């Protein structure tokens, strides 16, 4: 595009009442002895009575001149904007134009309207059409006869479900969800140990169906799984069932509309569904983690498509998972677990909290195998109705945890190889001098509250032995 000639430039749209208000002023400036060019964003016939009106319905000029509101009056000197007045303000217009007594019958000031070039969805399109792209990913052309949804399947980019085709416009819109730059390094993604930047995460978040405001959660989740202690490479490579599961705490869950209530572990909520899926697509596409490749899961589990939910904190009698881990309650966090699937606990009879703990312990004991001990702790999702039982009895989360741990000390004679005529179990040389062994490593269960109001059920989400759960703050 040619550089702007020196002189005055006004950018307007007829749809803006302030622009129609200043139409006589534009005529007045046009009649004075100075060059005036008017760019019009909607109606090429507007404004009337001005010699040079340029049709900018394509919005290219508005984009290149960074117009945010109309009317905008600019004075160009040496091909560059030297002065700018936004909206109608007599003093500013007179200063920019160098003319006096402009629009004397008009009010002193009147704010303008938003420029069409910054309307939602338009700005990204213009950036792709006319801007210098800040995105560095390889461009993949879709053939004329190719369906773009099928093209994503054909290239191996999906988890088996359709993805949103990652156009540059959609990715730019996704990147609006973070202050981080597209080339900012997020980490090294297994199994192929490929570098991953914010842009690659944004592309996969688009494909997963995320909204831009979910991106900081996805970024935090990706960074969390890449922490050494989480062991993402092993989690992917194991023949066991598990995949990464994201639990979100803090205000962000409510801000982006996550589900912590009815069907929290199930389908139907966009944020829950797409954040977990975006994480898995990053592992697949950036890391190269493909089932049957390095992903050796013998059966896998449906949570490997996506597994993400929020803790139901707002009406909880207990401190949240994140607070237990040392975060402030107004801090938003992701916590990552290896998750092997959901096992129900059904206890509709126990009213006494101690009895309910025994009930939970009996169910938890079967996790993995009833004769296993010192295993990786699962996530215990306690329902609101079960939590009520403890609240009414005045039990803290600590007391609940300690009582459960107590009931999860298993007599070794029940655990050893051969007990119950089952070879699976603990070898005798590991139990010397011990009468009991804890079911879970270091006796630390992960306890999260979630679910709908009604239902005397809770849930066990089994883990995998090679992982430590990690948490990370979500930043914008």
């Amino acid at each position, binding site marked *: 595009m040619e550089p702007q000639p020196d002189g005055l430039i006004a950018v307007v749209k007829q749809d803006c009442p302030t622009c129609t208000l200043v139409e006589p002023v534009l005529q007045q400036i046009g009649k004075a002895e100075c060059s005036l060019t008017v760019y019009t964003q909607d109606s090429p016939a507007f404004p009337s009575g001005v010699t040079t009106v340029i049709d900018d319905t394509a919005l290219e000029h508005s984009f290149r001149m960074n117009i945010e509101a109309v009317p905008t009056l600019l004075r160009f000197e040496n091909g560059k904007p030297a002065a700018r007045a936004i909206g109608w303000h007599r003093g500013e217009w007179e200063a920019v134009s160098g003319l006096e007594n402009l629009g004397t019958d008009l009010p002193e000031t009147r704010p303008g309207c938003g420029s069409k070039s910054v309307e939602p969805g338009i700005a990204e*399109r213009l950036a792709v059409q006319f801007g210098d792209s800040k*995105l560095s*990913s*390889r*461009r*993949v*052309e*879709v053939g*004329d006869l190719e369906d*773009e949804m099928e*093209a*994503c399947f*054909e*290239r191996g*980019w999906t988890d088996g479900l359709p993805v949103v*085709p*990652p*156009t*540059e416009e959609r*990715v730019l819109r996704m990147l609006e969800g973070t202050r981080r730059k597209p080339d900012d390094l997020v980490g090294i*993604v297994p199994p*192929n140990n*490929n*570098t*991953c930047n914010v*842009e*690659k995460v944004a*592309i*996969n978040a688009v*494909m997963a169906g995320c909204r831009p405001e979910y991106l900081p959660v996805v970024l935090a989740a990706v960074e969390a799984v890449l922490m050494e202690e989480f062991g993402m490479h092993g989690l992917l490579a194991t023949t066991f069932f598990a995949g990464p599961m994201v639990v979100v705490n803090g205000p962000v869950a409510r801000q982006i509309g996550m589900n912590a209530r009815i069907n929290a572990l199930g389908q139907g909520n966009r944020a829950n569904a797409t954040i977990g899926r975006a994480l898995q*697509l990053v592992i697949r*596409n*950036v*890391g*190269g983690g493909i089932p049957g490749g390095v992903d050796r899961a013998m059966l896998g589990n449906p949570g490997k498509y996506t597994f993400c939910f929020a803790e139901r904190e707002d009406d909880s009698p207990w401190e949240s998972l994140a607070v237990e881990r040392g975060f402030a309650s107004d801090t938003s966090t992701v916590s990552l677990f290896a998750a092997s699937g959901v096992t129900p606990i059904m206890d509709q009879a126990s009213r006494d909290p101690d009895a309910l703990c025994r009930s939970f312990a009996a169910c938890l004991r079967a996790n993995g195998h009833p004769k296993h001990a010192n295993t990786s702790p699962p996530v215990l999702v306690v329902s609101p109705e079960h939590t009520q039982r403890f609240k009414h009895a005045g039990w803290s989360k600590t007391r609940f945890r300690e009582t459960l741990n107590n009931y999860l000390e298993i007599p070794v004679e029940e655990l050893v190889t051969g007990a119950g005529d089952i070879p699976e179990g603990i070898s005798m040389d590991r139990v010397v001098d011990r009468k009991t062994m804890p079911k879970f490593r270091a006796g630390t269960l992960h306890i999260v509250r979630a679910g709908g109001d009604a239902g005397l059920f809770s849930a066990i989400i089994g883990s995998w032995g090679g992982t430590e759960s990690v948490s990370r703050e979500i930043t914008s």
Partner: protein
Amino acid sequence: MSGPRVLLDPTSEQRPVQRERVSRPASLEGLTIGLLDISKNRGDVFLDRVESHLTERGLTVNRYRKPTFTRPAPVELQQQIATECDVVVEGLAD
């Protein structure tokens, strides 16, 4: 929007954009060869000759026929050929 539709590559970009064709086998020894007659005139004559050459060399040959050359093969036929054969020869023109 006009012009080609362009997507951003979500991968680590370590493979070429252009997908490679499956490489041709070095030998037909031990492979099952499908001969697909697309129902074009005299295609069967051509494929009969091909079949006799192949069977003379002791190779396994399966014969298939599309109902009409004007449309793609029915999905069942595609699946049958894909599961029963290692390579396929089809007679395209009359």
